[in-house]
């Protein structure tokens, strides 16, 4: 391909950060689709606007989602991207791959698609970026051969994702990868056949550091936590201090509840465990000396989402603590309860958080049979506008 065709994009080949334009060009060398994509993007850079059409539902047999249909708005000029659909391919939990698997994936994608992909999409899928309607089914079949299934799209449960968890992290209170894989297998129907009012996302983080960014972008976030005391290796703490670690300013003062204190004489870190709110900070700062407790499980937060329509939400505590052991039945039951309530009461395109906002948390809790608890709120209500049930109000 002639460089002069893309003077604007060429500028983005300069600089030290890895260049997506270089990648587009690499793909363009092998694929006419990608070559036309490059040209269309150059046009977008010139016109200051995208050139994709809206609408158009495409898919593969037996599935209701997993493919995002896309058509160029300028098919005459850029025939290679006349049809340019993406396949959302469910990633293995934790984003681990053998090189063998990845190579197989590349081979399939070079054969049936643009040769361009995202590792990964924001939800967690492998995004195979651009193929024709015709190629969708054979591509999917070939993916199946090598063990890759589609993820979610549309009004479905979406592809789950998680942090690295116990596979490589000392803080993990739950086996994030196993929970993710198990739920994914359990909810294949819900993932592949959109039947909800809108999208429903689940993400799993192993501890309150939330490395999966679950609480911001999951309708249901599962976040590991412990409920006994932090394990303190006093020897280890003393070593930090002896090495000049500024314990007071780096840890004690920054504990959100002042749960820690340093006994300089006894060289002991004192923890008032009932004050600890599991923020992780002290453990993060002194991983060699402090560890999460032994009574481990997870909290379930609901309602995290992006701004549209009612505003962005960060997940709300629904269950403060739940033990998580395979087969994760309690968790699965809860997810079913929640999604069924939502499926029944939610309006079209109404996210879970928006439904709860509309009906009120008390009504939602009653609907799914979860008992209220103070962990659900930062503080009780301040307005005197409370409801009473007929049966609560005894009348003479």
């Amino acid at each position, binding site marked *: 391909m002639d460089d002069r065709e893309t003077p604007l994009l060429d500028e983005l080949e300069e600089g030290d*950060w890895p260049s997506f334009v270089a990648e587009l060009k*690499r793909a363009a060398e092998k694929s006419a689709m990608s070559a036309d994509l490059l040209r269309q993007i150059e046009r977008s850079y010139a016109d200051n606007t995208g050139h*994709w059409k809206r609408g158009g539902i495409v898919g593969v047999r037996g599935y209701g989602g997993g493919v995002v249909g896309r058509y160029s708005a300028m098919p005459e000029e850029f025939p290679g991207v006349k049809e340019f659909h993406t396949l959302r391919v469910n990633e293995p939990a934790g984003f681990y791959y053998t090189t063998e698997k990845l190579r197989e994936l590349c081979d399939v994608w070079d054969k049936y698609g643009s040769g361009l992909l995202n590792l990964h999409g924001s939800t967690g899928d492998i995004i195979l970026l651009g193929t024709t309607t015709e190629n969708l089914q054979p591509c999917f079949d070939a993916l199946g051969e090598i063990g890759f299934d589609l993820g979610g799209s549309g009004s479905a449960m979406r592809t789950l994702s998680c942090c690295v968890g116990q596979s490589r*992290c000392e803080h993990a209170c739950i086996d994030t990868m196993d929970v993710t894989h198990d739920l994914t297998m359990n909810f294949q129907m819900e993932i592949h056949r959109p039947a909800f009012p809108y999208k429903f996302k689940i993400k799993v983080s192993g501890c309150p550091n939330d490395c999966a960014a679950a609480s911001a972008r999951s309708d249901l976030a599962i976040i590991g936590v412990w409920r006994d005391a932090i394990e303190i290796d006093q020897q280890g703490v003393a070593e930090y201090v002896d090495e000049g670690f500024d314990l007071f300013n780096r840890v004690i003062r920054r504990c959100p509840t002042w749960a820690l204190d340093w006994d300089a004489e006894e060289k002991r870190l004192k923890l008032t465990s009932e004050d600890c709110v599991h923020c992780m900070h002290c453990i993060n700062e002194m991983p060699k000396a402090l560890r999460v407790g032994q009574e481990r499980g997870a909290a379930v937060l609901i309602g995290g989402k992006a*701004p549209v329509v009612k505003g962005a939400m*960060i997940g709300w505590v629904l269950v403060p603590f739940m033990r998580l052991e395979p087969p994760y039945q309690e968790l699965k039951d809860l997810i079913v309860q929640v999604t069924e309530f939502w499926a029944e009461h939610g309006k079209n395109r109404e996210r879970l958080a928006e439904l709860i906002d509309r009906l009120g948390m008390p009504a939602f809790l009653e609907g799914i049979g979860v008992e209220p608890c103070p962990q659900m709120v930062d503080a009780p209500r301040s307005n005197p506008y409370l409801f009473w049930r007929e049966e609560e109000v005894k009348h003479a």
Partner: protein
Amino acid sequence: MPKTDFGPPDYREMIPPIVRENYGKWRYHRIPRPGVLEHVSETGDVLSSVRVASPRLVSTDFVREICEIADKYCGGHLRFTTRHNIEFLVSDREKLQPLLDELEGRGYLIGGVGRAISNVVHTQGWIHCKSAVTDASGLVKSIMDELHDYYTGKKPVPAKLRIAVACCVNMCGACHCSDIAVVGIHRRVPRVNDDVVSKSCEIPSTIASCPTGAIRPNPKLKSITIAPEKCMYCGNCAAVCPAIDVMDPDTDGVSIWVGGKLSNARTTPKFSRLAIPYLPNHPPRWPEVTEAVKNLVEVWRQRAKPGERMGEWIERIGWERFFQITGIPFTEKHIDDFTHATTTFRSSMQFRI
């Protein structure tokens, strides 16, 4: 019947032996050099993870290249992070330095670990999304070309800094809780093609799609009308009804948001807040945006205390001073006027004058 619902590859078949053997047994970690994590297991095993920047949008050739490297140094295993970095997993200590050398030789950027700016979480942009106001990949490239020294650790920063870029207010990602978020916005009321509405739009759901109730039915034309004074150009109606067009290359632009976070460390998760309502959409290098982000990073970097994230720093010094120090004008646009606006108004005498 085709085979369906078989699910993703089982992670157990993807993880390297050292991970399988030490699963759930990791004891602690340290950061021996920028971009490298060293996890120590209670078995005594040590796993070195080398983190490398990826443009996320890659070609199969790129993937083959990193596979080749992983074969050479990592027994044929690798992973990606939740922020789209590549992680090479080295169980054989001998291979660490050679891997680092090869990566550097090939021009890969090693970093993003610990107190650093990590990869930018971003969205499709003009590459693939019909709703894109701007190009996410181009913005990321332009911004990170300026900031990569904070990725590689050549220049230190006080704490983790997470940048996100979204091409429209749908914010595919966790933009709304990022230290710095760059978001494409419209500024003009959408145009309605009444003929198309009457044919191809579901009017009630179009009306319901509007966060501010700007849309009313227009029974005469079997269409809808948008009250311009109530519309804040989110484009959600256009997502629901193809007869509505919200794109406008002349007035569309980019906004910048700051101070969000997601970890629960020290402070609870925070939303990103409006810093700069509008900057022009100037591909291919977005000089105004790049400059603004750099300014924000610099101002924070020079003033925050060790370990203090952007939002924590701002809350410590106060938004009053944030606007003063950054030189960003505070306008009526910074004052919320959506549903919960009153809960953001200052109901105390605690402020700086």
